[in-house]
């Protein structure tokens, strides 16, 4: 695996896409009707024909693409950095200045030539490239012809003209070398990182059969109408709007902005009283409830009251198998059978006979996914039955009523005084401590469970 460096003068497939787009911009800029107005630009005492000012470039980009001046400046800078436009004043500095500094289109777009040298035969790509290049060359030739014509006409005229040509050529060369041999400290724009080999030619690819198979499968699948799917996005965004700190801010304040970690403290995994937004979120979907440690705990309490807690215990045990160590699978499956599936088990779960039979059969040769069907059955049972009832229960309603709505922290009276940023214990540290404590506790015969505190 080689990392392609600038020295090779090469460029990559990934750059082809953006070179094409940059050319589009340049071609548009050179359009005789809608493009940039070129005129003679004064450089000290010399007059350079067919040039444009930095200011004009920015104005044109701003107008054409309907973007801000800041963005035009940025885009224009990219065009200069890649050599499509070069500066006549201070040619060592490939930067677009938003003032009267003169610039010119590079007559021989260097990057395009570099690219051309390295294009491997890619069928349609070559054709497309040829089209683009010939279009660009037509335009450039048009400009260049004009310059040459003018030069010839005024050949007898002063040294000025020749001096202008000399300056132009010098600047062109400077730009070329700056791009190809950037001085230290300057970004190398032709550096594209790790080379991604063109795999169409050099690697064993899949049999077309795979594609045919995939297409056939895809043709048979059920699809949902766009109107229904897309409404789903609207609903989701609306529901979660108040929970999106970047969109709506967060209470009491965004720690990154205020340097105050209260928001995190209030929303830690286990707190005495949760925030209102958090409790509300439990009602959005069953997944939200289960994903929140406190929510899951509350739900467990509710299920205990309903004498159906074994469902949640079962689900948790199945999750443990799915995501746990491979070496413990057999042992865990046995435990599940003993506690949840065996006749007369302490926490017997009510699964339909078909699923039960399939699962019992699978247990004979336990693997990571052997509990999947049973787990899904119980999951949907809880989701359809217990979960909606929980949301209507007093337990949930009281939780919601008690929940905190933090006060918004007003901006500090002394905004320029930076708050001290407090560090927090690393999860790695609390885990090590917990393990140590447990080790000690086990020795003493007691059982302590240190939760993580963050």
């Amino acid at each position: 695996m080689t990392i392609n460096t600038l020295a090779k003068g090469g460029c990559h497939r990934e750059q082809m896409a953006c070179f094409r787009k940059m050319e589009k911009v340049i071609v548009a800029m050179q359009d005789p009707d809608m493009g940039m107005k070129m005129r003679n630009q004064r450089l000290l005492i010399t007059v350079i024909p067919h040039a444009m000012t930095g200011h004009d470039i920015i104005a044109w980009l701003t107008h054409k693409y309907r973007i801000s001046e800041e963005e035009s400046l940025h885009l224009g800078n990219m065009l200069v950095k890649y050599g499509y436009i070069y500066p006549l004043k201070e040619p060592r500095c490939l930067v677009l200045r938003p003032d009267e500094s003169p610039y010119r289109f590079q007559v021989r777009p260097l990057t395009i030539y570099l690219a051309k040298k390295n294009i491997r035969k890619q069928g349609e790509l070559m054709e497309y490239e040829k089209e683009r290049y010939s279009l660009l060359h037509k335009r450039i030739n048009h400009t260049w012809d004009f310059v040459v014509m003018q030069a010839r006409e005024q050949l007898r005229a002063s040294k000025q003209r020749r001096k202008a040509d000399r300056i132009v050529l010098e600047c062109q060369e400077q730009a070329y070398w700056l791009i190809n041999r950037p001085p230290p400290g300057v970004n190398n724009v032709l550096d594209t990182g790790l080379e991604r080999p063109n795999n169409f030619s050099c690697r064993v690819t899949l049999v077309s059969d795979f594609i045919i198979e995939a297409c056939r499968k895809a043709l048979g699948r059920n699809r949902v109408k766009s109107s229904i799917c897309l409404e789903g996005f609207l609903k989701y965004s609306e529901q979660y709007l108040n929970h999106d700190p970047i969109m709506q801010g967060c209470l009491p304040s965004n720690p990154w902005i205020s340097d105050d970690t209260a928001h995190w403290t209030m929303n830690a995994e286990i707190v005495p009283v949760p925030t209102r937004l958090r409790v509300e979120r439990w009602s959005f979907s069953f997944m939200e409830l289960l994903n929140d440690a406190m929510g899951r705990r509350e739900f467990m309490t509710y299920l205990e009251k309903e004498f159906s807690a074994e469902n949640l215990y079962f689900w948790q045990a199945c999750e443990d198998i799915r995501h746990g160590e491979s070496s413990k699978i057999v042992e865990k499956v046995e435990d599940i059978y003993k506690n949840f599936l065996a006749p007369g088990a302490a926490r017997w779960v009510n699964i339909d006979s078909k699923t039960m039979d399939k699962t019992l059969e699978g247990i004979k040769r336990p693997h990571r996914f052997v509990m999947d069907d049973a787990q899904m059955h119980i999951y949907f049972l809880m989701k359809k039955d217990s979960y909606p009832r929980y949301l209507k229960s007093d337990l949930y309603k009281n939780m919601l009523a008690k929940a905190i709505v933090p006060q918004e922290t007003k901006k500090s009276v002394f905004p320029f005084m930076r708050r001290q940023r407090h560090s927090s214990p690393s999860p790695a540290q609390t885990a090590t401590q917990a393990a140590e404590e447990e080790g000690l506790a086990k020795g003493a015969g007691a059982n302590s469970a240190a939760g993580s505190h963050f």
Partner: protein
Amino acid sequence: IPMQTYFILSYTQVKIQSPPTPEMATQEVPLNETLAHLKTESETLKSKLEEERAKLHDVELHQVAEKVEGLGQFVMKTRRTLKGHGNKVLCMDWCKDKRRIVSSSQDGKVIVWDAFTTNKEHAVTMPCTWVMACAYAPSGCAVACGGLDNKCSVYPLSLDKNENLAAKKKSVAMHTNYLSACSFTNSDMQILTSSGDGTCALWDVESGQLLQSFHGHAADVLCLDLAPSETGNTFVSGGCDKKANVWDMRSGQCIQSFETHESDINSVRYYPSGDAFASGSDDATCRLYDLRADREVAIYSKDSIIFGVSSVDFSLSGRLLFGGYNDYTINVWDVLKGTRVSILFGHENRVSTLRVSPDGTAFCTGSWDHTLRIWA
């Protein structure tokens, strides 16, 4: 643009449609004929598939979104700058504690930071350069990383100052080409990887055993993301073959495939509900694919945006899509309306990686300018 089809190198892999006869065994199959036949068949099927997909496409996202309120002025600034890498930052990931991050760079350094205080807490030097992938374990007690070494290794994070992190390193994944991305699944026990060798794979951390491999990309796989769905069994990957594939983790099958980008897909990220995912590509566009409608439903692009997207992520509600671009900027898109809400400047070289924090309070970018920035 005609769809590319993928050809077989060795003719012995060609499936012959008719049952083999003794004559055929000794006869050489005319390669061009078989290839042409397969090409026609796959192209016919592909256009049929597009027809089917189009039938149910009765409205565009931005049309549906007309009734939604537009977004106002958007102000996001750099709130922290993390300096410490000596070379291009290639990847980063958040810890579940919402403030710590791990980052990796071209010179082989992997650093764990408390981004809030900007303190560096751990640093490891990998034995290879170009560490393109790194991930934080859900427990917060370990990190995984890899790159040109073709491996994914797990380092347990020890707070003992005297302990050398590299000593406890565990080699988990082995590919035959560079590691482009890695992610822990719901626990510290399994890792999902993608590689330049064109495959993705699921590994058991404890034993280093390969649990499942995923074949179907015709070129380097550059990115992956796990689905936040209820059944938690799928993930999406994007590659240099311009395809985004959705996989079943249990069976290794590719369940859905999308091919609308015009260049390499550098980043894929699920919409928070799990019903869709976004992608970012060298073709300078981001796209949204709906899994139930089985099609692309939005393109986020602008004529003035010329450079490729390296990394994408959604805000918590999924209303905003953040894209890190190769022209050093971050573009913020209104996912529903398809418009560009804001452009953020700050980095001095390409943005190579971008992730929103677990609680959505900020997002972090890593750049070739050697720094990471937290934006809020």
